[in-house]
């Protein structure tokens, strides 16, 4: 059981347009797996399929060794509690304070006492260096801070897999670097598997274990960066600015 996520022959359609065409891939435990590709190539769609926000037209998705595409909601909820997801804009609940946002999954899915939940929230907020934002509302935060709060919320339940939708988009290089360091720490200290959609070159070079490159819904490459270099695929060479 080395593979934590296994996808077989996944097909996604929007009306009659094919978004994902027969994608198969496996993601190993404790690796940082990067989904990349040209705009409109189906990156976010692939991510949304894995976390069950969209049901596939055909194909199967295994998470923790269980087939999830036809799973009942109650059972899938159990899978979801072991998953964290960081959305592009943070997707914090705007009507709730920062600490309430981070506490939400804990309050809903555990029977922990309120004071313990509060301690856990403080711990997660410290991990992302946002102790001072405890009592603020999301509208009072900057874009980077929102993302960090969202990260704190995503790791509140100590998930086994963490999904990121363009984590460093819209961040300055220094904040992006800090986020990457945080990601590497999460992998090292907590043994989390990370699946990341991004096209920040620097970030990919820093953190990627393996990548999938999507072009017009097809996976034209899956493997490590070194392998990508050896394979010498035109599109990927151009993406990374590698000379042939």
């Amino acid at each position, binding site marked *: 059981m080395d593979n934590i996520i296994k996808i077989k022959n996944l097909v996604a359609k929007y009306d009659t347009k094919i978004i994902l065409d027969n994608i198969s891939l496996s993601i190993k435990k404790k690796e940082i797996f990067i989904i990349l590709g040209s705009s409109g190539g189906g990156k976010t769609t692939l991510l949304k399929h894995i976390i069950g926000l969209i049901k596939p037209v055909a194909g199967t998705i295994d998470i923790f060794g269980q087939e999830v595409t036809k799973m009942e909601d109650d059972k899938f909820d159990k899978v979801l509690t072991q998953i964290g997801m960081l959305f592009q804009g943070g997707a914090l*609940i705007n009507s709730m304070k920062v600490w309430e946002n981070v506490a939400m999954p804990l309050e809903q899915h555990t029977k922990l006492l309120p004071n313990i939940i509060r301690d856990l929230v403080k711990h997660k907020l410290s991990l992302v260096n946002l102790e001072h934002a405890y009592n603020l509302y999301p509208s009072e935060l900057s874009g980077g801070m929102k993302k960090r709060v969202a990260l704190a919320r995503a790791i509140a339940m100590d998930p086994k897999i963490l999904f990121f939708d363009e984590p460093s988009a819209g961040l300055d290089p220094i904040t992006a670097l800090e986020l990457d360091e945080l990601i590497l720490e999460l992998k090292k200290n907590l043994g989390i598997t990370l699946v990341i959609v991004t096209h920040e070159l620097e970030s990919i070079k820093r953190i990627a274990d393996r990548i999938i490159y999507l072009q017009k819904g097809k996976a034209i490459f899956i493997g490590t960066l070194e392998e990508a270099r050896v394979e010498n695929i035109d599109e990927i060479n151009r993406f990374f600015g590698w000379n042939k």
Partner: protein
Amino acid sequence: MYNIENNKIIFDNSFLLTDIDSFIDDLKKYGTNISSVQIDLSKVETFDNSVLAVVNSLIKKKYQFLLSEKLITEIKIFDKLISFNEKETVVTSGFENLVLRVNDFFSQITSFIVLSADIFSYSIKAIFRKEGRRKGSIYEQILLMGNNAVPIVFLLAFLIGLILSLQSAAQLRQFGANIYLVDLIVISMITEMGPMITAIIVAGRSGSAIAAEISTMQITEELDALKVMALNPLKYVVAPKMIAMTISLPILTVFANIIGILGGFIIAVIYLELSPVVFFNRAVGVMTLSFWWQSMLKSVLFSWLIVLIGAHFGFNVKGGAEGVGKATTASVVAAIFAVIMTDALLSIIFYFDF
């Protein structure tokens, strides 16, 4: 910059956006006689894209130009870049459009029914089970949708009662049927105006708020975030509103009924000179329990319609901030329409005692 010599407009080496206005004005002086003017751009080396656009369109109008080499190549490139067809390729006939619209309407109705069934089942579950909804959220929603609506509902119900009785009193008085004002105001307030006015105000206040909140959450991916946290948005966001609305709207309606009748009471005493005791006795005599049942049944149905319609338009939002505005407007219009339709239907049913 340029100079005009007889029928020639001669440019120096630059032709920029800032020259265009005066150039066009000067060109207009020649009127429609295009062949009478020659424009010499042979020395122009510095120019803007807007100049390319102007010159390109003038060439197509058959103006006489002398162009520099650089301009000729740039205009060719420019013309090629703008040569794509900007019109929408899918053109549907009127009939096809109608079919599409009818189709869309029915698919909306189906999705509304499915959503309603889901919301009902989650709301009933939420009454008994605390998991999956926020602590104190029902109480918070009752405050928001019920408590905060009290002043406006009171005021409007009072005014409606007052106006309704004033208009009727003038007519009744001519026949000496003063005492029947009591029947009129009590029955119409309790069975019709009370529930309807309250529902319309609440649809405007809270129905719109529900649609706006849910559609914003949809657009900012908050709903997706909830789903990924294994929290059902229907359970977490809609169910508390549904429960709160089912509680608050009937209570508001009871108040509205009483305040409306009070409005009638003031007209009866001041304008028709009925004694308060007579009004009171008559009112109690007219007010049967079945009228109150009607009133409550209506307001409960209205409360469901308001929440369900708000949620429906909220979840089906398309586009960005503009979509939120559209969803909110559509939800209020649809909710008020549904409330009045349902009221009419129920009134007919009750009147004929089906």
